[in-house]
């Protein structure tokens, strides 16, 4: 009878030890798992989420709006974020559904901007970007081709003119600027002896206050897109009527 009781106790002890061993093994497994090199979350930084396009013209860059000064060559650029392998990207430029060119840049030559026909056919209206895995992104483009204002060489006073005047005599400054795209919004700035006068849309004003001697004037005309034309500086000489008398 005593022997039986001993055996039951011994069995319980074994079961407990087994449970303990299983627990220890599980904990060791957990520790081992924790020591494994867990892979990082997939790096998405190299993927392009959106397309940004800008216009580069001279030293200026425009992206909102995409504006091109029609008198100078320009480039449309797809801005690739740093960290993205450019060599793995293919870029296509489209106009009215027809591919114009490929590459991350698109050259816009002044010839394309001479007439509306060229503009309608050679200025891209869509860009598509494709990566190595074949994923593609596209963006519709609205490129504004702006004809800059043009100042006529003919001015009053003409370069080198000599004028008789007292300090209160009005001298008329007049010039002429045209813009193929707009006529009313041109902003004119008259610089007389380096003093700027914002004369708005006026292209003829009278000013006085000129002492005897050499004076300069210059005109800058700016359109609503910020494109401008500047007249080279002109000089005129004032001879004082009173001094002459």
């Amino acid at each position, binding site marked *: 009878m005593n022997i039986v009781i001993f055996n039951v106790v011994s069995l319980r002890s074994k079961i407990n030890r087994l449970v303990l061993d299983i627990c220890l093994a599980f904990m060791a497994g957990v520790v081992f798992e924790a020591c494994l090199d867990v892979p990082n979350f997939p790096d998405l930084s190299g993927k392009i989420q959106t397309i940004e396009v800008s216009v580069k013209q001279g030293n200026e860059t425009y992206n909102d709006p995409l504006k091109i000064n029609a008198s100078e060559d320009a480039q449309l650029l797809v801005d690739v974020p740093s960290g993205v392998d450019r060599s793995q990207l293919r870029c296509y430029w489209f106009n009215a559904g027809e591919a114009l060119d490929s590459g991350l840049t698109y050259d816009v030559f002044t010839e394309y901007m001479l007439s509306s026909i060229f503009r309608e056919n050679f200025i891209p209206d869509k860009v598509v970007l494709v990566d190595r895995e074949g994923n593609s992104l596209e963006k519709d483009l609205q490129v504004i081709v702006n004809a800059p204002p043009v100042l006529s060489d003919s001015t009053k006073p003409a370069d080198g003119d000599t004028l008789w005047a*007292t300090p*209160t*005599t*009005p001298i008329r400054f007049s010039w002429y600027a045209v813009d193929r795209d707009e006529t009313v919004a041109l902003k004119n700035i008259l610089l007389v002896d380096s*003093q*700027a*006068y*914002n*004369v*708005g*849309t*006026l292209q*003829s*004003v*009278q*000013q*006085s*206050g000129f002492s005897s001697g050499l004076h300069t004037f210059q005109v800058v005309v700016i359109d609503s897109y910020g494109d401008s034309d500047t007249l080279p500086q002109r000089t005129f000489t004032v001879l004082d*009527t*009173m001094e002459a008398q």
Partner: protein
Amino acid sequence: MKFLAFFIMLLAFVACTDSDKYLHSSEPESIIVSAYMTPSFDSIYERGRADTITPGDSLIFLTSIYPSKSVWSQKYYWTLDGNIFANEYNFKSTVYTPGTHEIVFVFVDYFGDTLSDTLSLTVASPPALDVQNFIPADGMQQVDPYQILHFAWNADDPDSIWNLNYHFMLYENGCDDSCKPLADTIVDRSTFSYVNGFKPLHEYSWYVRAYNEIGQESIEEIAGRFFVRGFNNESAVLGFVKTNTPVDVDSFYITLLDSGLNVVKKIEQRENTFNIGALAKGSYCLHIGLPHFPDFKTDTIRFTLLENQVLSLDTVVLNDRGVPRIASITGRDTLAPEDTLKFLVTDGGSGIDLSRTIARLDGISVNQMTLSNDTLSVPVSIPEASWTKKILVISTHDLSGNEFHKSFYVLPKTTLVEVFVD
């Protein structure tokens, strides 16, 4: 058993308390928060919910909480455009960033409910005008009377966010107050063109003030004037006459002489502005006077006119240089003894009155004088028992400060013999 006893005691306790007050009270009062701002606690400033300041101006932000600020709350704070601005009920601060800002007072009550009140604050700097450089330059001559004249000026919005408007005004100078401005308009660009032409040989003035979208006015004002040319190289001279002391002028005369002192023009007119044209170029001199106020004089004004010149003499001031005059009505300086002596007091300038006139008899002030028109009545008391002459000194000065003193001898009523015989 113990439990039953405890329950009965609890019931008795509850029955004895005024529980209705707590269990069936009316609805709890709702909390109301309000926010205000004011430039100062000074009573002249009102508390408002919207205001406009210039960058750097300080404002006091205030809160009002109903039923009271002692209501339990979790937190309260102010935000400026969504960012934490302050953590106080009331505080003084400023905002420098130009633009219209939303300032919110947020109150989170004990139960976590959020209450708030919103203020609108606009921060802006007034527009700036270049008062030195504008078109046409100040004093321009020879403006064509029949051509469009263009005006242009430079203005700047220091904040670079507001649209500017300009109040442009154009006047003909020398016109009396009944004249309307030739132009009185608001323009949204810094130019104005006047197309209606001008009177030849006249002077005009123009003024510009700038306003931004929120109505702030420029501190500066552009003020310019120009002169319109005549025909055939004619010239003109113009100006404004005033006296150094205000008098009721009904007319004045102008005499213009050429270099040979020949009278070119002689004018008498009621207005105190003059415009003399058309004149040939040359040297001139001008005399201006007031017919009824001969004491007002000016030095002879000499000037030279160029061809097509409209010369503005600006303001010609006539100075009251004549002193008042005092004489007895008999014309003599030795006066018979009378109870009241009468004198003529006259002035050809700014005038005299009794308050500026004093009389002393042997050094003693004489009271109760009267002045009627130009007659001064001086009551004097000559003692009967006196045989000596008395000295009466009358002093007066006009409104311009020109002084005059005159002494008179007043004869005694009795002679020396009569006095001693009596």
